[in-house]
């Protein structure tokens, strides 16, 4: 079910953006990276954000990840308006509700796979209760838990990154080009994993250029010049 949907109104939204804008200063000019977009993502949805380079996809992901604040409009995440949140509150929101999967995996090279996966749990000061092992088994990396990232293949690194994103049981998984650094076969495998996670009820927003991944998503948000096309 692939549709280009600009303003759905899900009954139980995890994300609600209204007139969402982001402007960056560049010298004397102001660059509008996002220009008043409206959208909502319901709980359990799998949404792909697509669009050409420079269309505002990464800016949107930064806002959704509470790593930046909008310059206009409102953005509600897990029921909280993020514009007025302090730095500490945004950190807590990221820690409790968000999981990230990055194009370049973002694994810490000095830590083992298991330690990388446990990292968000360490920051959240949550005791290790077997969740790390459970996720490593789920993504098929249990046997590689003591390896360092450089000893893994690209697909394994991405699966480790997915396990890490899930370790604090987030309500929203944000993925930035998750298949961008993988060959097509490995990419397919990871798309399958995303499908599986979404089928389990996890809300996913993935920025992607990969047609297979956007096809796998239930809905597509198409960005062009900072606006939803």
């Amino acid at each position: 079910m692939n549709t280009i949907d600009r303003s759905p109104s899900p009954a139980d939204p995890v994300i609600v953006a209204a007139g969402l804008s982001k402007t960056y200063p560049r010298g004397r000019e102001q660059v509008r990276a996002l220009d008043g977009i409206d959208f909502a993502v319901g709980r359990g949805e799998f949404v792909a954000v697509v669009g050409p380079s420079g269309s505002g996809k990464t800016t949107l992901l930064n806002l959704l990840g509470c790593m930046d604040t909008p310059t206009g409009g409102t953005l509600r995440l897990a029921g909280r308006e993020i514009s007025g949140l302090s730095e500490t509150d945004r950190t807590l929101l990221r820690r409790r509700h968000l999981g990230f999967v990055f194009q370049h995996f973002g694994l810490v090279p000095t830590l083992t796979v298991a330690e990388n996966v446990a990292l968000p749990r360490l920051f959240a000061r949550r005791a290790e209760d077997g969740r790390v092992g459970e996720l490593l088994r789920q993504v098929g990396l249990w046997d590689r838990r003591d390896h360092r990232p450089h000893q893994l293949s690209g697909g394994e690194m991405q699966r480790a990154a997915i396990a890490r994103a899930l370790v604090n049981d987030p309500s929203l998984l944000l993925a930035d080009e998750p298949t961008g650094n993988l060959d097509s076969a490995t990419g397919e495998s990871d798309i399958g994993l995303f499908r599986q996670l979404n089928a389990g009820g996890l809300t996913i927003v993935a920025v992607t250029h990969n047609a297979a991944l956007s096809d796998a998503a239930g809905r597509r948000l198409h960005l062009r010049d900072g606006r939803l096309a």
Partner: protein
Amino acid sequence: MLRFACRNLFRRPIRLLLAGSGIAVSVAVWIVLSAFGDGYRQALGGELQRAGMQMMLVPLGCPYDAAARVLQGRSLDISLPADAVDAVRADPDVAVAAPLLMAAMPRPSEGRTDLWVGLDRSALALKPWWRARRGRDWFDATNGVILGAETAAIELREPGDALHCPGIGATFRVEGVLERGGTADDALFFIPLATAQRTFHQEGRVTAVAIRLRDPARIREVAARLQRIPGAQVVTMTEMMGTFLNLVGTVRTLMLALAVVAMSTGVLGIFNTLLAAVVERTRELCLLRALGASRGQVFGLMTLEAAMLGAGGATAGVLLAFAVGHLVESLVKSYVPLPPAGSLVQIGPGLVARTLVLAALAGWVAALYPAWRASRLPPALPSGTP
């Protein structure tokens, strides 16, 4: 978090080694120089205590040089007339007045100078540690000689052996070998005072008079009176210790300034290492923020790395100080006035603890700016932000 910090530190082993070595060297310098001051004060106090006297009468000249030479068993170029001894003994506050005659006998063929001391029985009252390890502890004959422990070992002589002194063409009979006392006396040849005066052509003269008072509290009054003896001057042990400590104190201040420079170098090493790590790991630190690390956690991580670096370097520095302490001592000893026989570099647990606390504090201060800078990094995706 500890393991994470540890792994981060070992990410660049050579940089870690260099930074750690810098801290270790600065801590070692700090400890050795601090320990030298404490050790010198204790050893000098002990040496003067073992001398068993409160003051010394020496010929006019530099009193401290003269007193130092006498305490070290070195000879003086000038001497006191024998009536100076009578004048001292006549003072009602003087309990013991022990005349000493020192003479140096160069032995160029063996590359050393022997030091001979003439003394009478009154000297024994000032040397309670005077015990014969072998043979007799006092002279039976006028040509008798008692050897210090070290002298006996060098000369390979036992009681009853003859000892020929080629410089003066005299032969002595070894009467005893003293117990090792840990003082300059261990390296001396002791002979009766009258024999020394005759042998070294100093009839009726002495090099110095060691004085013990009945009441040490009257030292000022007695010193003032003895100061009037013609051709003589009095130096008290308190003055002597104070003078040497002042002299050493000045040197110590300079050395401590060096130690502060060394410690500052170590601090700058930590600062530089951490700042480089922050710049190098900017993307990773931003990633940690994205994964839920708070500013405080990033700050804590960086300061923990600094603390571990500081603690590791400081521990290595303490070990280095113990390893090179004696080497430094042997170097420094040749430059200080009146080097006592005891250890000059005394590294006690208090000094080690103080230094470790100081190093930890310095490391923490050095880490503040890099850690603050790291904690201000925004959370970001590793692929970059606009």
